[in-house]
């Protein structure tokens, strides 16, 4: 009788279902996975070390590039850490803007996730639908910051600038006639808030549309139900947070339990799964999008009625306005110091965490009082979830590996840092 050996398969790093640069060494017995060893670090850029050599403000754009699918949430944790070290207050309007954009980011992230997850599992249509809606939201990013992805919009002390009064419009060209672009411009007549208001009233219907495509779809359920079950006990042992933990039935959400900014003033629910399989995590994320939309709506209503400053007036932290800078000596000095040496953050250490679309995203900074961080540690949710990969895929079929990677929602920008 011939000797039987397990088959070792190299999955990735150029596999389209590996969500970036995941290389996984799989040990297979027939088609059953016996062991999975993820090799990560192919996208390692040493963000934490780079941040030690840059001034505090210069590291903000690096944060966007961590989890490049939920950019503003990363900035949020970083800015919040600095604000807590400096013990400064953020103006209330900036807090609402941050919450609003955090939720926009959550919808952006989950839309991409449902699209790509669908694509991996065989539901081709989802990605086309999801990117249609993402387009509107990245336009909102562009309207406030000028960049569609890497916004660098949150700054220590507030946000870079107030919401714009008008939206960019599509223009007639030799490829698109005036009649063709008219429907595109319909919602863009007013301010950014009008545009988002229009989006948030359209969005629940669109979500229903996605759900008719997937939720009761026989193939979708066959691929997801009972795949990658994580019990609540194991989820805690493996440090799960966010939708992964809630999918396992633990109602834990930092926005509710340890509210930051104005999350204690908005009304929303947190969905919880039952069995902890991939299908539950799918349902949790779909419901989270609905809840995010609710928060978005509340923020729009508040922001319409309450104008005010969006940046701290403490010029040791936030740059003064151009006008003041050009007419007053004091402001000129502040501006010069901020733009050359940068702000100084008092000695101390702080861990600030936000409920990132993927889980708990934390920034641990140690400051020794210099104009640069002494040590910056990023706590990436995806890294923790991926470390449970071996446990989750053992005993499953090779094809289920793709489902489980998809349901973990990994992005390599934050895992490799």
């Amino acid at each position, binding site marked *: 009788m011939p000797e039987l050996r397990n088959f070792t398969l190299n999955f990735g790093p150029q596999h389209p279902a590996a969500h970036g640069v995941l290389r996984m060494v799989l040990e297979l017995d027939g088609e059953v996975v016996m062991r999975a060893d993820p090799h*990560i*670090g192919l996208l*390692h850029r*040493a963000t*934490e*070390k*780079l941040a030690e*050599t*840059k*001034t505090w403000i210069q590291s903000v754009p690096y944060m966007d590039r961590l989890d490049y699918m939920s950019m503003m949430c990363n900035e949020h944790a970083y800015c919040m850490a600095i604000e*807590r*070290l*400096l*013990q*400064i207050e953020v103006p209330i309007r900036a807090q609402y803007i941050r919450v609003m954009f955090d939720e926009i980011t959550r919808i952006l992230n989950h839309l991409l996730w449902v699209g790509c997850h669908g694509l991996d599992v065989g539901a081709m249509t989802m990605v086309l639908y999801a990117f249609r809606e993402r387009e509107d939201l990245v336009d909102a990013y562009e309207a406030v910051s000028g960049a569609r992805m890497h916004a660098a919009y949150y700054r220590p002390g507030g946000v870079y600038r107030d919401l714009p009064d008008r939206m960019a419009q599509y223009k007639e060209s030799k490829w698109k006639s005036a009649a063709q672009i008219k429907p595109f411009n319909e919602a863009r007549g007013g301010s950014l808030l009008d545009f988002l208001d229009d989006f948030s009233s359209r969005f629940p219907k669109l979500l229903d549309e996605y759900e008719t495509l997937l939720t009761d779809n026989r193939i979708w359920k066959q691929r997801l139900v009972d795949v990658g079950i994580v019990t609540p006990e194991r989820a*805690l*042992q*493996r*440090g799960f*947070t966010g939708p992964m933990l809630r999918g396992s039935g*633990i109602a*834990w959400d930092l926005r509710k*339990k*340890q509210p930051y900014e104005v999350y204690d003033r908005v009304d929303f629910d947190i969905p919880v799964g039952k069995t902890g399989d991939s299908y539950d995590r799918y349902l949790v994320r779909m419901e989270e999008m609905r809840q995010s939309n609710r928060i978005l709506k509340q923020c729009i209503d508040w922001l319409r009625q309450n104008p005010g400053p969006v940046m701290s007036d*403490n*010029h*040791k*932290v936030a740059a003064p306005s151009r006008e003041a800078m050009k007419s007053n000596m004091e402001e000129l000095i502040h501006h010069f110091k901020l733009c*050359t*040496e*940068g*702000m*100084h*953050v*008092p*000695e*101390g*250490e*702080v*861990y600030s*965490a936000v409920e990132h679309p993927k889980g*708990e995203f*934390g920034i*641990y900074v*140690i400051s*020794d*009082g*210099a*104009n*640069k961080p*002494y*040590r910056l*540690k990023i*706590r990436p949710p995806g*890294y*923790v979830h991926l*470390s*449970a990969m071996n446990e989750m895929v053992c005993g499953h079929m090779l094809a289920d590996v793709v489902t489980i990677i998809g349901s973990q929602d990994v992005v390599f920008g934050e895992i*490799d*840092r």
Partner: protein
Amino acid sequence: MSSATLEALSHTLQEHLGDRVKSLKVALGEVTVEVDAADYLAVMQTLRDEPALSFEELIDLCGVDYSTYANAPRAGRRFAAVSHLISITRNWRLRVRCFAPDDDFPSVPSVTGVWNVADWFEREAFDLFGIVFPGHLDLRRILTDYGFIGHPFRKDFPISGYVEMRYDPDQQRVIYQPVTIEPREVTPRIVREATYGNVENA
């Protein structure tokens, strides 16, 4: 965390850990305890299993190199493993710092048996700082390249590294060579007096 929670937490910690806590600091709404490497594992076990504390989750574990702290020569030990714990039932957080006793061969007991999630965090701290975790079953490098030499996040490791990679057309393969760039610091690192960035001072 509110000041009442902070007080309750520090009180419970003192009650259950006793003199195993070398220092307990409350600052900026967070509690930090420092423990000796010898007590570390037992303390972590207590923190998880004691119902009055119940830290079910290890949120983060990282290495820190204190050698150039505040641009001044350092008297204390160099490497520390810093963990962040969270309790789902009690809704509080804690930071635990454990200095490695030996600077030349930093070593801190592994907590993978207490929280399985420590697996990759400890591999990362080993990879980047060279802190060894006895008790870890699979302490391999994780983030750096295959065959990487050195521990890049130590303060004496240059930001540009030691080697660079390029394609060599003569040998028709990718080769490593010493770096050809020099580290350049645009803004120097400056530590001012303690009150410099103070808001009350503004």
